[in-house]
């Protein structure tokens, strides 16, 4: 479950997804990239009107009867985002709309489609994922989650699957099947790309990165997504630790000072003089008793 405060998750949710409204969206015509051209062609205004914002508008709305309704419809028609228009919206917006069945998702983003999946399957190691999106794996995970939930919501709202004779509902069921299949494919593609050969090669490069004279890893690192870069950093730390251990061997670990103090305090009734004044904030142990010599296991008798 992604964290609320997690910055990478928030940025990954900015991934754009193409959606189609299932009915006209009022006041949102500006989301359509072609709206400006259409508005100028139709002689309409470029900016969406605020409801109740102006006197003239209110005057039109306050008319009575069908004439009023039709007039309002005509006036607001230019600011409707028409049904079926393709718009690109970030995942955090699409999530709410998709859960309420306001939009249809025709296809996943280009870099998660069949062609890209095949390329990943063929040679995941040499793919430049950073070119596609910085948070390729995280955004993909969120996308898969969204698609699966969308399918689930659709199935819950239409339990009689295949029972209806309506052609549109059949088409929608087929679209949902395709979406579900896409989601599963993306899921397995992400998993195999992240955990397969690419990961092994990533950790191989961490070994090479320690010898700065031999290999230049920048070409490799610039191809990684954010998650892989983080794993590369961790691998680098681990490789450095192993190298250090091989060169200098392992020493005997000393017991923490805090443990020693606690042990002595328990045994000796708390008459310890800890390393007085060792706390940087001035948390000195003045007045806590005499200073006592401590025997550490690592150093022997001090």
């Amino acid at each position, binding site marked *: 479950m992604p964290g609320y405060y997690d910055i990478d998750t928030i*940025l990954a949710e900015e991934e754009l997804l193409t959606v189609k409204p299932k009915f006209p969206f009022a*006041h949102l015509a500006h989301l359509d990239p072609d709206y400006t051209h259409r508005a100028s062609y139709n002689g309409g205004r470029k900016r969406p009107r*605020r*409801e109740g914002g102006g006197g003239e508008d209110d005057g039109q*709305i306050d008319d009575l009867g069908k004439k009023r309704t039709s007039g309002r419809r005509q006036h607001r028609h230019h600011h409707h985002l028409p049904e079926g228009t393709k718009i690109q919206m970030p995942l955090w917006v699409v999530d709410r709309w998709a859960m309420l069945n306001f939009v249809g998702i025709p296809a996943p983003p280009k870099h998660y489609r069949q062609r890209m999946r095949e390329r990943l399957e063929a040679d995941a190691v040499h793919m430049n994922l950073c070119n596609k999106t910085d948070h390729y794996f995280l955004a993909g995970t969120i996308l898969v989650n969204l698609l699966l939930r969308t399918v689930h919501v659709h199935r819950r709202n239409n339990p009689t699957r295949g029972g209806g004779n309506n052609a549109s509902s059949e088409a929608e069921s087929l679209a949902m099947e395709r979406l579900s299949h896409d989601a599963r494919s993306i899921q397995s593609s992400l998993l195999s790309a992240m955990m397969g050969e690419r990961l092994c090669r990533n950790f191989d490069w961490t070994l090479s990165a320690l010898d700065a004279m031999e290999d230049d890893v920048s070409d490799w690192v610039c191809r990684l997504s954010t998650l892989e870069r983080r794993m590369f950093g961790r691998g680098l730390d681990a490789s450095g630790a192993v190298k250090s251990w091989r060169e200098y061997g392992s020493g005997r670990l*000393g017991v923490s000072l805090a443990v020693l103090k*606690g042990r002595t305090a328990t045994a000796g009734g708390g008459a310890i003089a800890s390393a007085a004044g*060792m706390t940087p904030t001035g948390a000195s142990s003045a007045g806590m008793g005499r200073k006592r010599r401590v025997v550490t296991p690592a150093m022997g008798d001090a």
Partner: protein
Amino acid sequence: MNYGQRGRELLLDLKRSDWLPPYNEDCVRAVLQEINSHTEELTVLVRASNRIAGGGPTSSSSSAPPPGPAIEDRPSLILHDVSIRRNKRCLLAYHAHRIDKLRSLRWETGMLPPGLKFVLSESEVDYFNEYDKLASRHGLSGPMQMYDWTADQYPPEENLVQVRVVRDGLGKVETEYCGTVELEVGSTHYLPRGDVEHLIRSGALVQLSGEESF
């Protein structure tokens, strides 16, 4: 109107910096302003849709209109609502990240280095000072007062560490089993880790790695 782009800029600012970027007050204000404009827009839309639903001929008891705003108005309302929530989340994440850094800085160094003050806002400096007071009071009272809360931030690897003095005026330090050591700038010593750990954290001493110490 852009939807959550200023909040995204704030977070990208955090991602680009090594520790913390200077507090971006302009961008924070812009995000707050965007939240306000979304709220105003939302209020206007809700009022308009309520007026339409309440005053129209379709709202008679016989036709029984659906409760709430019209279905075609709902996507717009939801868009404004999620934009407000999104901006709020960006702001909270931005400040939570900075506060986390400040808290860990307190336990690592115990003080606010003067060179880092310029990246913090006035409120953050106040927060650091208050947190420092609270943490110090917690460490000095209660049954756990004999423990040094700032010791061993990381698992110890060895008892003695090789250090180089980089700050002037440290004077002499009395260690538990190495006697009294005078810390002059540029000198190198092999001292018990627990005795000099706070000086390493504050930057007065630099711990030498295994390779440098050999």
